[in-house]
C-alpha cells in the first residue's frame, strides 16, 4: 500500500507539472499582450516594456515557465496587478469556502445516494425501486442553478427559514452552517441521483457474481452479503466518479456561488476572467488544477485500499 501511495503521488506531481506548463503556455499563446490589457489603451511602448520586465515577460518562454513552476512549488503565485496583493493570498482566502461547500454537498449526496442505490438493487424491480429511479433521473436532469434559485425562493424568501446570501459571519460556526445548507443542497441534489443510479447498477452486477452466490450457499446473513461482500466491490466505480466529481466541482460550484453570493474559487475565476485579471485567473486555475489532481489521487488511493488488485497494478 505504501509503495502504491508513493507511485501514485509521484504520478500526481508529474500530472500537475504538465498541466501547469500547458496552462501557462495557453495563456501566452492567446493573442493579446497582458501589459496592454493592464495598462489600458493609452499606455506608451516604454510603459509596456517596463511592465514586461516587471512581469518577467521579456525573458525566453522556457525560462518563464521554469521560473513560474519554481514559484508555484514555493506557493508563490505572483502578484495581482489590480489590487497589488499576492495572488496566493486572494485564492487561498476563497479556497476554504469552496472546499467546505463542495465537501458538504458531496458528503450528504453520498450519505443518501449510497443507501438508496443499495436499497434499489436489493429490492430491484419493485415499486419503491422504480420510485427511487424516477427520483434519481429527475434530480440528475435539473441543473443545479435551477435548484439553487428555487430553493432560495422557497426556503429563504417564502418560508424565511434559512439565510439567502453570503457565507455567514466568520468564526460563528452555527451561522456558517446555516448559510451552507441551501447551496450544499443545490449542488448535492443531482449527485444523490447520480450516485444512487451508479451504486444500483454496479451493485446489481456484483450481486449476480459467482462469489455472492457462493456466500449465499454458505448461508451468510443477507446484511453481511450486501454491505461487506457486495458493497466493497460495488462502491469502486462510485469512488472513482467522486474523485473526478469533487475535482470538477471545485471550479464548477460557481453557479451556486453566484446565486447565493458566496465567495469561492469558482466565483473568483469568473470575476477575474470578466475583469481580464490574468495573474489571478492563472493562480486560481493552477490551484483548482492541483486540487483536482489531489482529489483523483485520493480517490484512486481509496480504491487501492479497498481492492488489493488495484494496489498491485499501476
Amino acid at each position: 500500500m505504501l509503495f502504491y501511495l508513493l507511485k501514485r503521488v509521484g504520478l500526481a506531481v508529474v500530472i500537475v507539472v504538465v498541466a501547469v506548463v500547458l496552462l501557462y503556455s495557453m495563456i501566452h499563446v492567446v493573442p493579446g499582450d497582458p501589459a496592454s490589457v493592464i495598462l489600458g489603451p493609452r499606455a506608451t511602448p516604454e510603459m509596456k516594456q517596463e511592465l514586461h520586465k516587471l512581469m518577467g515577460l521579456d525573458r525566453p518562454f522556457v525560462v518563464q515557465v521554469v521560473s513560474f513552476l519554481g514559484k508555484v512549488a514555493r506557493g508563490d503565485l505572483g502578484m495581482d496587478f489590480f489590487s497589488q496583493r499576492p495572488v496566493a493570498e486572494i485564492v487561498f482566502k476563497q479556497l476554504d469556502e469552496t472546499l467546505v461547500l463542495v465537501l458538504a454537498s458531496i458528503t450528504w449526496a453520498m450519505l443518501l445516494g449510497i443507501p438508496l442505490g443499495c436499497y434499489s438493487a436489493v429490492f430491484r424491480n419493485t415499486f419503491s425501486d422504480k420510485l427511487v429511479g424516477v427520483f434519481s433521473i429527475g434530480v440528475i436532469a435539473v441543473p443545479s442553478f435551477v435548484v439553487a434559485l428555487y430553493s432560495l425562493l422557497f426556503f429563504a424568501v417564502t418560508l424565511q427559514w434559512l439565510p439567502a446570501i453570503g457565507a455567514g459571519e466568520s468564526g460563528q460556526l452555527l451561522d456558517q452552517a446555516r448559510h451552507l445548507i441551501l447551496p450544499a443542497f443545490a449542488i448535492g441534489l443531482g449527485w444523490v441521483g447520480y450516485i444512487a443510479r451508479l451504486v444500483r447498477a454496479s451493485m446489481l452486477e456484483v450481486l449476480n457474481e459467482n462469489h455472492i452466490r457462493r456466500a449465499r450457499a454458505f448461508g451468510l446473513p443477507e446484511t453481511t452479503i450486501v454491505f461487506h461482500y457486495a458493497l466493497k466491490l460495488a462502491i469502486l466505480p462510485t469512488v472513482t466518479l467522486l474523485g473526478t466529481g469533487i475535482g470538477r466541482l471545485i471550479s464548477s460550484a460557481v453557479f451556486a456561488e453566484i446565486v447565493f453570493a458566496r465567495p469561492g474559487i469558482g466565483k473568483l475565476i469568473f470575476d477575474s476572467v470578466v475583469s481580464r485579471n490574468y495573474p489571478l485567473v492563472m493562480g486560481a486555475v493552477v490551484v483548482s488544477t492541483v486540487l483536482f489532481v489531489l482529489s483523483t489521487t485520493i480517490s484512486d488511493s481509496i480504491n487501492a485500499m479497498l481492492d488489493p488488485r488495484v494496489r498491485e497494478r499501476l
Partner: protein
Amino acid sequence: MTQPVLDISNLCVNYQTPKGTVQALRHIHLQVPPAKVVGLVGESGCGKSTLISAVIRLMAENAHVAAGKIRFMGLDMQGFSASELRGIRGRDISMVFQDPMTALNPVLTIGRQMVDIQYRDGLSRKKKRERAARMLERVGISDGLSRLDNYPHQFSGGMRQRITIAMALLVQPKLLIADEPTTALDATLEVQIIRLLKDLQTDFQCAILFISHHLNVIAELCDYVGVMYAGELVEKGTVRDIFHRPGHPYTRSLLECDPSVIEEPTRFLPTIPGDIPSLIDLPKGCIFQDRCAHVMTVCRKTPPPAVHLGDHHTAACHFLEE
C-alpha cells in the same frame, strides 16, 4: 435401508420465459445415502445445475418448483422458511462451485472469507483462523496461517479450488454438493482435485452429490450415478451398473462417445446425432426419441416406464425388461 441424506422425489422445476414455460426438470427421483458419493452426468443444459439450485433453493428468479418434494435428513425442505434454509446452507449442506476463479470474493482475504462462514460457531476469531489454517493445510496449501492473509488473486486456479473445497468442508456438512468442480481446471489438476475430494470424503464421511460431464471423473469418484437427459433422469444405478451394464440407449451412446474408450485411431470423434428437444414444447412419448437409434412407434406415443434392472439400477426405456 438407512435414511438418505437427500431424498428427491418427483421433482419438477419450470422456468417462466417470454417464449413460454421451460420444463427444465421433470419427475426426478434421486436419493443420496449417507457417506456415499452420487454422481450426476449429462450434457450441458440437461438440468444438472437447475437440480442443485433447487436443492439449496438458490434458484433463478424466474424458476419455481412445480411439483415434487426434496427431503433433507427426512425434513421436507419445501416447508422451510428463508431463515431455516439459511440455517441449513453452509452448515448441513455446503457447495463447491464450477469456476474457482470467480467463486471467491476478490476484495476480501481468504482468511476473512473462511472466518465469516464459521459465524455460527461461538469461537474466538483466533480459533476460527486456526481452524481455517488447518483446513488449508489439509487440502494441500502449506503455511496455512500466513496464507490466510492473501487475496484470491494471489492463488492459482487449482489452489483456489482447493480453498473452496476447504471452505466447504470447514463447516463439516452432512452433504457436499460439487457443481462441476474440475471443469474449469486442466487435466492434471483435475486428477489432483478428484483424489483430494476422494481422500477428504473418506476422512469426513460426508455424502457428496457430484455434478460432472466427465465420465472418467464420475467413475473414479462415485458410488452411484444418475444419467440426465433434457431434464429427466433417464437412468440411475451403481457405477458398476452404469459403466458395465448400461440400460438406456442414451447412457450407451454417452459411453461410446467418451474419447478415452476409443481404441482404434480415427479422424472423427463419435457424437450423438441430433439436438436436445425443446423443453418448452415437449415431444409426446420418450424424450430421447429423436436421437435414439432404436426408436419405434411406441416411443413416440407413450412415455417409457422406469424399469428396474437391479437393486439400485433403473432406466426409463420401452425396450428394457426387469
